[in-house]
């Protein structure tokens, strides 16, 4: 479902991606670092401890994380998929992972999101961005700085503007 692009943005840097996506119905696991679907994770959590590479989990936008958020707290990467860029559920999912479940690893956006969403995505706790198609990542990074401040509380700014400046 996703192309395995080499480069992605993490914490503002362009870096190489080492993770391959594994869908729920795949029979064998590739070697190296993998991102398995939430269903695969739920069904095979034990076996996955023996995998030689790093294991992360990817979550689709419709998935309710409440019933397994606890079990993924220690994985190095959680990816959240945007089936369409206008599907805004991932914004809530990312915030819940950070704010409610205390996840501190990498939260990576995958799928159909667009550059013009980066500012808000970063506010909701995404710190890594693996675009669906090849784009100029350095140019796209400018969108992180679309605004210099915000009214609301979010992952990047736990105090509202009115408590900081007014």
């Amino acid at each position, binding site marked *: 479902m996703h192309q395995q692009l080499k480069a992605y943005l993490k914490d503002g840097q362009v870096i190489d991606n080492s993770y391959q996506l594994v869908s729920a119905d795949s029979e064998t696991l590739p070697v190296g670092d993998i991102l398995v679907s939430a269903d695969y994770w739920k069904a095979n959590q034990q076996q996955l401890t023996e995998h030689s590479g790093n294991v992360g989990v990817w979550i689709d936008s419709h998935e309710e994380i409440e019933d397994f958020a606890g079990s993924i707290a220690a994985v190095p990467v959680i990816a959240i998929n945007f089936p369409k860029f206008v599907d805004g559920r991932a914004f809530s999912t990312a915030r819940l992972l950070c704010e409610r479940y205390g996840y501190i690893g990498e939260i990576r956006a995958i799928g159909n999101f667009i550059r*013009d969403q980066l500012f808000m995505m970063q506010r909701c706790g995404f710190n890594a961005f693996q675009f669906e198609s090849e784009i100029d990542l350095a140019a796209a990074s400018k969108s992180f700085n679309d605004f210099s401040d915000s*009214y609301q509380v979010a992952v990047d700014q736990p105090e509202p503007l009115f408590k900081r400046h007014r």
Partner: protein
Amino acid sequence: MYIYDQYDQKLVDERVEQYRDQTNRYLEGQISEEEFLPLRLQNGLYVQRLAPMLRIAVPYGLMSSRQVRKIAAISRTFDKGYVHFTTRQNIQLNWPVLEEVPDILAELASVEMHAIQTSGNCIRNTTTDQFAGVADDEIEDPRPWCEIIRQWSTLHPEFAFLPRKFKIAVCGSEEDRAAFLLHDIGLQLVKNESGETGFHVFAGGGLGRTPVIASSIREFLPKEHLLTYLDAILRVYNRFGNRDNKYKARIKILVRAWTPAVFAERVEAEWEHLKNGPATLNGNEIERVKSFFTLPDYQTVDSAAVDAEVQSLATEHKAFSRWLDRNVRAQKQAGYASVTLSLKPAGVAPGDVTDRQLEQIADLADRYSFGEVRTTHNQNIVLADILKSELFELWQQAKSAGLATPNIGTINDMICCPGGDYCSLANAKSIPVAEAIQRKFDDLDYVYDLGDLELNISGCMNACGHHHIGHIGILGVDKKGEEWYQIQLGGSANKDAALGKVLGRSLSRDAVVDSIEKLLDVYVENRLDQESFLSTYQRIGIEKFKERVYAPAA
């Protein structure tokens, strides 16, 4: 009114630059049509049948005369010299050029205005009572709360891509003038037993294809919890609202599917995690925002003397007396009144005004209403805080500007959508129907005698013209490619909100006006004393009306 500080200003300035860059990238082919769509919608830019339309936010309907003059100038420079006031208290430009929109936004930002979230699947402009702060039945001024909601909702990072558009209204008075029960969230200001302010929270109202009156989900929300509770509602909706079918995507469908009780439980469960969190309002912020909505310096007035003077002028000038009856409303401040400037003279699309009229409105505001202008969801303009002793003078000037048609709240004060003349979704034209009705009922004595009557027209079931909540509603329908009209009766947008009932089979355009006349005849024949059309209908039911309209020609 609220005045921007450096943070508010910086945000709108940065938004202009963000949108300018997006427009440039779109024009250079770096952003696809599909990707640009929500980006431009979130900045109020639609592309319609004939041209793009730009919707400008008028937060809770409040503007300064300086802002009104800026809108006049923008409409002259960038458009055809007129603008349209919408049913959600906003302003629309009908003919802007896509390439020039960033410049229009920069002009707006220079007077603390913007077009942020006036369209698209995000939290829209919060609306309220046009008589806020001066209404005699007010529990508390809703405007500070609207401003607090405006700031919270502006570029909210989590809720920019909701399943569907999202509208919030706040009602601060006994009588509802904000149609708050027909909003995704309706907030009613209330006081508890200890006299503390809070909100009665309703959710899941809306018009459109499936009109629904909002359900109560929390009877008392203490004021400091407003934003965390809104976060909880929006998060539940963002996560669980339907995203597969746009006609089932409004929050009203979710509330109905889960039942209001279950929806309320889910919101409460989410709120448990957010309650008392950092977004909880403090007294400082509430007081800071309230301080912008202080009352002007009223003069002490000899009310009895002024009333006598106004009364004698009214006796002398029948037209003035009519205008006093229909367009002037008492205020809680003695000696002052609120005036509604009618944007519904016959022959003009309801809600349209010219650049020159905008400037005249600004002048009137400077002279008589402390420089403040209010827009209404009925698509008129209100000037509040008018000294009663200046009413006659104001009337004369408003009249020469074409803004004093004495028809507020009458059959000629219609809400009407753009319809088939402008809108690609229309089944039928609506503006010509409105005009035909205004022409037919041009006898002012008759119109006054009919009294309060709301007639609303939509060109299709999307219901932009609020036909479901008109006492008489007219809906354009498509019958084998021809334009027909369905009539509904008994809708109401007030606290006793009700949706209209279909009268019977649809009618051709020619038959609409005659049928309206028959409905009015039935009313006049059956009413008791001062009974309004709506009350008569509620008492006698739909049958008599139906019989008359569909009686075979004699």
